[in-house]
């Protein structure tokens, strides 16, 4: 089994860093079995290709703009995820959407996909999350854990 939890985002732009902060928190708070890889993807693109190849389950955590109030947390599953990417052209063009498309082209696309997205409040320069977005962390963590547990992964909270 290859299960990947990928946090993406730019940690220098306040809430843009929520994905990276969330996977850090996951590693900090929980003990995960060795077949779960937790990756801080930053703002990388093609460098991630190999890490994501042939995953049985890929969970992406990222900042998303979905015309919802700040701190709204959304979840998209399987086919909804590439569809979500297909309709957008992000300024960060060689980001995760191209990696997913490249995985598809190489027939090494993840079998199961989940996207946990958080609507940001501020993308100003700064390395802290805004308090409103930081406050979504328990919900984001719970969703990550739920995704893992539903996939049969045993997740234990550290003492």
């Amino acid at each position, binding site marked *: 089994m290859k299960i990947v939890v990928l946090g993406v985002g730019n940690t220098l732009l306040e809430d843009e860093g929520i994905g990276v902060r969330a996977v850090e928190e996951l590693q900090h708070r929980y003990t995960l079995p060795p077949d779960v890889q937790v990756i801080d993807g930053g703002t*990388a693109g093609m460098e991630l290709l190999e890490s994501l190849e042939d995953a049985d389950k890929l969970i992406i955590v990222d900042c998303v703009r979905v015309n919802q109030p700040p701190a709204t947390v959304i979840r998209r599953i399987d086919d909804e995820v590439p569809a979500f990417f297909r309709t*957008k*052209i*992000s300024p960060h*063009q*060689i980001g995760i959407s191209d990696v997913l498309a490249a995985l598809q*082209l190489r027939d090494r696309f993840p079998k199961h996909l989940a996207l946990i997205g958080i609507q*940001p409040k501020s993308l*100003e*320069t700064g390395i802290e999350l805004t308090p409103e977005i930081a406050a979504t962390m328990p919900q984001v963590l719970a969703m990550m854990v739920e995704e893992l547990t539903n996939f049969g992964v045993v997740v234990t909270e550290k003492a």
Partner: protein
Amino acid sequence: MSKRVTIDPVTRIEGHLRVDVEVEGGKVSKAWSSGQMWRGVENILIGRDPRDAWAITQRICGVCTTVHAIASVRAVENALKMEIPVNAQYIRNLIILAHGLHDHIVHFYHLSALDWVDVVSATKADPAKAASLAQSLSSWSGNSVQEFKKVQDKIKGFVASGQLGIFTNGYWGHPAMKLPPEVNLLAVVHYLQALEVQRYANKIVTILGSKSPHIQNVAVGGVANPLALDSQSVLTVERLLAVKEWIDKLDDFVKNVYLVDVAAIGAFYADWTTYGKGIVDYLSVPDIPLDSKGTQFAMPGGHIANGDVSTFKAITSFNDKYFTDGVAEAVKHSWYEYSGGDDKALHPYKGETKAKYTDFQENGKYSWLKSPTFYNKPMQVGPLAHVLTMFAAGHAPTKEYATAALDLVSSIAKTKVGIDALHSTIGRHAARAVRAAVLQDELVKQWDLLLANMGKGDLKTFNKPVFPKGEQVGVGFHEAPRGVLSHWVVIADGKIKNYQCVVPSTWNAAPRNEKDAPGAYEACLVGNPIADPEKPLEVLRTVHSFDPCIACAIHVMDEEHTEIVKVKAA
């Protein structure tokens, strides 16, 4: 009547760039390049420990992580007048070279080839003919008829399903697409193979950098890789042998596929050697230091004026005043203000990062990028500048690969193509491929140097930095994949007092400077043909030829944002 075309954002690049062109009589008459995001990272660094700056600056951008880490530690080491162990130089050099190869391969195949290669046309190719053409050009093992047939079937499936996936947004069938179907298929086959090969370069960075995408092994004073001949959990000979395996695999692709493809595709687009010249003042810096002080380099760098290689003036050390005294940044046309007035450029040590946003004003302020100059003139930086300056410096491998590439183009195009053809849009791609071959050979040399030095019993990788009281200033420069990168730091009592990053894409994508002289993109776009203003493929060709990276990498996913090309009467 002239037309105004606005492309916002320019796609298949890193970051958010807007380009406006005025089109008259089917050609670009004027151009504006506008960075649409603010990069305020410098302000985050003020007051912090200089030893942490590299880890923060490498988050500026998704594709340039390693380069900011390298430039940052070099700047702090320069301020402290430090020497670093040669092993640390070799390990950093290996990372720099592998990262550069990764960048060049991904840039050519995945970010820009589709400006020249028509994927839909590839479905109409005769795979046997395409494979035989490929075999006539190189000995690459991936050029079999079966492989070509397999890839073509896959593409046909994509096209039939209406889901082009990664190939969506291409200008398929555009009148400026000139390759025969067989050459298109050849390029698509290598596009797919390049996805595999780029992983090898990334593996080298990951093993040496302890982590990818963000390396963790760099430190002010050296690297944090403990070296050992045998012990576990450190950089052992065994792991270095694994690195060597990836180096050898890359070699075959770079020389037998990448360099050959650029020459072959370039030969079909000979007219593009006459477009995109623009600024012919070139700047590069020496890199791949071979000693602990940074006074000897494997790859030379310097300045060329007016496109004339005989004017070459070398930059010779990390302390060379010719470089450090020559750089300044203007904000007359940028959304910043200087306390002493916007009509004067400032040296980076005195640099200010204070925002002053207006709307897009084509005669006023219109970009978040500053406008860097070298002795008051805008420069072109990047692989073309690097190859021309290395050529001018008499660097033998550069001469060898540049000559080989131009000879191959000449034989395919059946006309003599000389080095002057490089001052162009297609020339920038050719120079990048030549540079890749040079980087590849240097990767092998640096690996040998590291192993030989370890064999002598020298395992030192780190000198501890000491921060004295008072103020120190330093610059760290690096010839990054996109060109000259420099970080400028002012340290006071062990804390950062000022920090400025002058990045390659700022040199190239800069707005007009304090004297209203256009930046490299702006100058290079003038004269470009535009067949269809609604589909300005030719603009993308020239902009993409620079490998743009508007270094700030915001990448919020957005459900509704689509690329917009607006055309209106000017």
